[in-house]
């Protein structure tokens, strides 16, 4: 289907390029997604090996790494045997095992991309990349710049090429060094095909050539394509299209060749050397090495999955007691970073109940902060809300920081700043090293919404609209959302007097990727507003009345409170406490103390991975150290984001309560018993592959190839135009996750565990094609836990089959403090060492 027809269609090629280029938007909103989303329509292994052959990506661990993991016990022998026998049959186990362990393979990859373009160097000895990239990146980066440069790019209303043309027209100096390319630009008479006729001269090659060219700098090309598709992703709007970007690059190529080889004397490439097109996207034949990788990867994944299932089985056989009278309920985000906080809360206050749901709490809207000039979307990225929530007074004055001001770069301003304030910079640096603390210069998740501000949650009049959106929700809309969320997570009875909705955000210093650490369900932003909005809705008397009419009763004494957990500093805050009744106010005081103790423990648990903190120190000290860490300029790992995520549990808390999952599980509450036919299940499952699967795969790919999929190490990053990072001033944008975020991560696919009958689950996932694709093509693994028999059913080849656990030993934890203190930090961040930092599933034996 790709380019089999002779000739060349610009539209088709542009479409294909957009499909395969990275789809990361400007970095202020970091939305996790499957890095290889373009291949999601085919099966996982086929897809990754194909992508690897085309683009040269590393898509699994190295062969020697798998062998090392086997040696150090992270891949179990029993599991490996089982994996081989499933793939190759029982009898072939010894032969294949020998191959897996000892056979020498030629594992050198020779990608298809770049073949034609490299001919310029070998045939004409012109290194186009070296000549063009720096200038091309500079121009596009200056054009898209959001506010670093002091002089803005002129004429932007004319679009990318339009502004360049206008600039060229009025300038004595040209971006080009020869005449022809400049003239073509000024005449405005250009098409991609026309320019390629000059450069290549054989239409069958154009498609492949453009892939070579654009994948020579996939970061910028991807960014341009994304800005074209979603212009509102930039605060300072710029018009640009991928087509224009390609045209500029082609013009620069012509210019370079003219200047290197003599003006207009060179012939098109295909006239200089005979070159045939190849199909970049042709199928990749299955090799034995691929099979070896598949079995290793499966064995690596299943060694962990088996541990999880064994743990679940253990709980099933010894169910824990559920509290009768609940002191409070806390609904937290499904985020795996909240997994530990929930565990600690339950340990400190056995009578509380914790639940999980995507952190936008089922309320989707745009948000406009008081004094803000832009709308922010607060819901999962694929959702397009038609509501607007506005914040009104009190206005919080935001501080300024002189050293970020542009005047420091001007002629006299620079002089004054360096002579007068230079020493102050030195002192500030010293202070941050000795005693890091918050400053206006550092991101603060809590600053996104004023603590006591008023939100326009309720729509008073249908005419109240702004920007095409309805301001606030009507009573019915509110009731629908409250009912939808609470039913979805199974909270329909036994309401505690206080129900907390704890959103999360992350305050991290000196971290351009901070958006990646915020709530994924809120489009990479802190979710405090969502928590407040939901609490407002659920507390609304009229909403409750509507719900009561529907037979959904929330006791009048029950109050909902929104809050936010800062996952980097382990601080928590609550909103709108003034609505609390006196009784609940007292209860809240008690609960607040429990939360605080939970956060202490959470900080302690996280500290075991941080070199700068001694986990066995006094727990309050550990907590303060965690807090300081989040505002330390010198700390590239204020937290690890979603690193280590490995599973997603959809079911009642009883399925996992009492297990130590090491912050590796997304947990969505769901009660099959109130939804026997799975009517609510679709709504619950639907966002999970996109959100959790997307996060998991982004981590997977950034982990296995941090250079090509990931952003490389953070340490040398330059921030470009406020839209992305580069590793080198003249280099390409680096999408993906930085090394410091993924080094704790074990690259395994997400295991989704759903507590419902396999036939119900199957029906639900098959009901929507794009949802089904995730499971059918094995980008996410799925297990159904039969709620009645407790059996595990694994989804493979479009059906569920029973899977048995191997071994039944689950280690126990008697004292969580000792347990955490005994855990060792990794020796190096090589996978063989790093993986050992991830602790096995444990049973918590505390009373």
């Amino acid at each position: 289907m790709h380019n089999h027809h002779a000739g060349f269609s610009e539209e088709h090629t542009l479409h294909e390029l957009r499909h395969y280029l990275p789809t990361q938007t400007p970095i202020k909103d970091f939305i996790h997604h499957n890095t290889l989303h373009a291949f999601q329509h085919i099966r996982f292994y086929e897809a990754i090996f194909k992508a690897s052959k085309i683009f040269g990506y590393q898509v699994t661990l190295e062969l020697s790494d798998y062998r090392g993991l086997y040696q150090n016990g992270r891949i179990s022998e029993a599991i490996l045997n089982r994996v081989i026998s499933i793939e190759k049959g029982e009898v072939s186990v010894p032969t294949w095992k020998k191959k897996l362990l000892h056979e020498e393979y030629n594992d050198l990859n020779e990608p298809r991309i770049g073949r034609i373009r490299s001919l310029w160097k070998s045939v004409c000895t012109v290194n186009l990349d070296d000549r063009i990239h720096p200038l091309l990146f500079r121009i596009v980066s200056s054009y898209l710049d959001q506010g670093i440069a002091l002089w803005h790019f002129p004429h932007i209303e004319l679009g990318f090429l339009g502004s360049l043309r206008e600039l060229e027209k009025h300038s004595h100096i040209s971006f080009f060094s020869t005449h022809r390319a400049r003239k073509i630009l000024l005449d405005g008479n250009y098409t991609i095909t026309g320019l390629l006729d000059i450069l290549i001269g054989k239409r069958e090659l154009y498609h492949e050539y453009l892939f070579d060219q654009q994948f020579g700098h996939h970061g910028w090309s991807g960014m341009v394509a994304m800005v074209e598709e979603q212009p509102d992703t930039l605060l300072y709007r710029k018009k640009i299209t991928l087509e224009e970007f390609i045209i500029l690059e082609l013009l620069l190529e012509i210019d370079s060749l003219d200047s290197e080889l003599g003006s207009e004397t060179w012939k098109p490439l295909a006239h200089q050397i005979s070159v045939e097109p190849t199909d970049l996207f042709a199928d990749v034949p299955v090799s034995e090495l691929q099979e070896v990788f598949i079995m290793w990867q499966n064995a690596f994944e299943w060694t962990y999955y088996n541990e999880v299932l064994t743990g679940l089985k253990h709980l099933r056989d010894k169910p824990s007691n559920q509290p009768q009278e609940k002191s409070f309920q806390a609904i937290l985000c499904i985020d795996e970073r909240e997994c530990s906080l929930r565990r600690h809360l339950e340990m400190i206050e056995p009578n509380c109940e914790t639940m999980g749901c995507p952190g936008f709490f089922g309320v989707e809207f745009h948000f406009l902060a008081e004094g803000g000039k832009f709308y922010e979307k607060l819901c999962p990225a694929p959702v397009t809300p038609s509501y607007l929530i506005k914040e009104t007074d009190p206005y919080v004055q935001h501080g300024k920081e002189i050293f970020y001001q542009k005047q420091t770069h001007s002629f006299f301003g620079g002089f004054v700043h360096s002579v007068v304030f230079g020493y102050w910079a030195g002192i500030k640096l010293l202070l941050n090293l000795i005693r890091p603390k918050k400053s206006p210069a550092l991101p603060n998740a809590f600053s996104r919404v004023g603590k006591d501000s008023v939100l326009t949650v309720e729509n008073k009049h249908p005419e109240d609209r702004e920007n095409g959106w309805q301001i606030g929700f009507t009573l019915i809309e509110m009731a629908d959302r409250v009912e939808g969320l609470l039913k979805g997570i199974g909270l329909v009875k036994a309401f505690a007097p206080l129900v907390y909705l704890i959103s999360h955000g992350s305050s991290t210093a000196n971290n351009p990727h901070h958006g990646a650490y915020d709530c994924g369900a809120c489009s990479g932003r802190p979710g405090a507003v969502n928590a407040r909005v939901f609490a407002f809705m659920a507390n609304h008397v009229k909403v409750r009345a509507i719900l009561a009419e529907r037979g959904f009763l929330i006791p009048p004494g029950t109050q909902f409170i929104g809050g936010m957990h800062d996952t980097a500093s382990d601080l928590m805050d609550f909103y709108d406490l003034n609505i609390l009744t006196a009784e609940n106010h007292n209860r809240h005081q008690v609960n607040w103390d429990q939360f605080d103790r939970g956060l202490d423990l959470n900080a302690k648990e996280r500290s075991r991975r941080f070199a700068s903190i001694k986990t066995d120190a006094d727990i309050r000290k550990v907590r303060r150290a965690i807090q300081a860490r989040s505002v330390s300029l010198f700390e590239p790992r204020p937290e690890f984001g979603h690193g280590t995520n490995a599973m997603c549990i959809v079911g009642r808390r009883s399925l996992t309560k009492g297990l130590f999952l090491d912050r590796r599980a997304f947990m969505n509450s769901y009660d099959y018993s109130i939804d026997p036919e799975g009517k609510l299940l679709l709504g619950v499952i639907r966002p999970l592959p996109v959100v959790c699967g997307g996060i998991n795969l982004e981590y997977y790919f950034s982990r296995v190839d941090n250079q090509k999929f990931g952003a490389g190490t953070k340490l040398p990053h330059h921030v470009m135009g406020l839209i992305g990072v580069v590793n080198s001033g003249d280099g390409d944008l680096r999408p993906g996750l930085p090394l410091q975020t993924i080094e704790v991560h074990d690259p395994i696919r997400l295991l989704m565990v759903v507590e419902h009958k396999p036939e119900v689950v199957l029906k639900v996932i098959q009901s929507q094609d794009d949802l089904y694709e995730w499971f059918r093509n094995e980008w996410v693994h799925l297990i159904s836990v039969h709620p009645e028999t407790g059996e595990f059913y694994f989804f493979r080849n479009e059906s569920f089959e029973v899977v048995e656990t191997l071994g039944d030993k689950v280690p126990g934890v008697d004292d969580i403090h000792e347990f955490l203190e005994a855990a060792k930090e990794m020796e190096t961040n090589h996978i063989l060492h790093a993986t050992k930092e991830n602790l096995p599933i444990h049973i918590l034996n505390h009373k």
Partner: protein
Amino acid sequence: MMSQLLLFFILVPAIGLLVSLLPGKTSEKKLYFASLGTLWVYFAGLIFTTVYFFSTGRQSLYTEILTYYEKGHSHLSFDLYFDWLTMVYGWVSVILSLLVVRFSRYYLHRDKGYKRFFNNILFFFLGLNFVIFAGNFETLIIGWEVLGISSFFLIGYYRLRYLPVKNAIKVVSLYRLSDITLLLAIWLCHLAFDRNINFVELANTDGWAEQMAHNPAYFFLIPFFFLVVAAIKSAQLPFSSWLPRAMEGPTTSTAIFYGALSVHIGIFLLLRVEPLWEDKIIFRVFLGLLGLTTSLVATSIASVQSSVKIQIGYSSIAQIGIMFIEVALGLHVLAVLHFTGNAFLRAYQLLVSPSVLNYLIHEQYFHFEAPSDRSWFKKDHRLRSSIFILSVKEFHLDKLHYSVLWMPFKVLGYQLRFLSSKTGYIITGLFILSAIGLIFTSLGHVNHKIDLIFSGLFGIYSFLLVLQSFTERQSVFRAWMYLVLAQFFIVFAAAYNGSIDFNESLLYLSGVILAGGVGHYCLHKLNVEEPIHDLAGHYGHIYEHPKLGMGFLFAGLAIAGFPISPTFVGLDIVYSNMHKGEFFLPIIIAFTLIFIEISAIRLYSRVYLGPHVKLYHPVAFRSS
């Protein structure tokens, strides 16, 4: 007595560097404390010395630690010196280094190059102290070269990516130019004053200008050469574009070196040699104009930058331009105040540069107003459009270096490719034979006309050989051999010229032979396992063969006469024995020396650095 103790400021970083080589790669704590300890001890010493300095009425300290060569007018020694300028640079250096080392402790945590990083910081610090405590030019140039090489390491810190390696070579090539210009400046001083002068003489004697005035060549060339040296290191025009390209390492090293210390060292040099130019109005005007132009150009480049770090880099250059003006006006105190303030400001700005994203986005969120570009680009402002484009293109500076400085030599090298043919080998053979033959027949006959002609020929030939190496695209062994031969021919040339005697030649060549052997071994051993087919691209073999890489690196540095090899002393000797009125040979040798180092480093990077050719593990894209 007290002045003898100045050695402390060299020994402490040197010992610290040696100690920091001991711990294993992952012993972060030890590496950190070795560095921190070194700096604290140094700091204590500096406080003590400063107190002493003030208590003795700011009397400068000077000592000659060691004389390593003495013959006729040539007196080569290792001297140290301490005055107010040393003090200020010492304080700023140690405070910034302390801050940055502390900052880097966790910043670099788990980085594969943790050890390399701290070794390099100390190596750099050592080089810096050689410069600021130097009591004479011979000592200063040691530091100057160390700064260059440590910069190569720090810029090419991420040695498995293409751009850092490419930029490291770019920068180090300019640095090399600066080293050799310094060498020539020193040689001119030697010619002008008939002796090796030290800084205490320089500062306390008047009338340097009159001494030079008898020869207008010296009168203009000496200050001019020093200015070139300073302008390169301080990224003034036309050399400015190296600075943004040096910002490739971890943010902390970028901050301390290219934001703060390294880039201000040109000011130091200008102030140090001030007696040589202070009476020359023309020079002062030129200096001031250079600073002013640089400042204006750098400000406009900074104004269009969309990269935070590069913007800071150009802003810093602009401020240094203003410092040049201040120095030209004789406003020393202001210049020094400006230097310290700028160093702290830019280091801080670089360190917090990742935060800019959040800060500015947040600010925009509440205060954004789409700029009306009318204000800047009214209807027909041709000049403004031109400046805008020029600034985006960095005033063509990067291209200028290539096309003016390096391209002609590349072209020349290609023109002379026939030297790499059979004919070439025969010519080389004949030359060597004649050299050896002549050694036996006419040793000691100095100033014979025929000797001088041969001397010149050998000099030219050494340069041609090194260009062959510089432009070699096929065989790495051949390229390496040319470097070794080039050094031999330098010695032949010097011997015929009478600048070096037999024993000194042996000393010189011992370094060359050893380096040549080690280098060849490291290439050969690698070639057996991983054939090196050509030199067209990078191989990145350091990924699998770090030891061979390190061996070759040392060999390369040694062959270039870096102060780890006796060749360095040999070179000093050659230059201080050059005859009066002899200009040709010193300059041709200088050119040879520039290209020997660049070529050696090029070979090292092509073979060992850059993206690894074997794609079985994550390898970075070429564009990153």
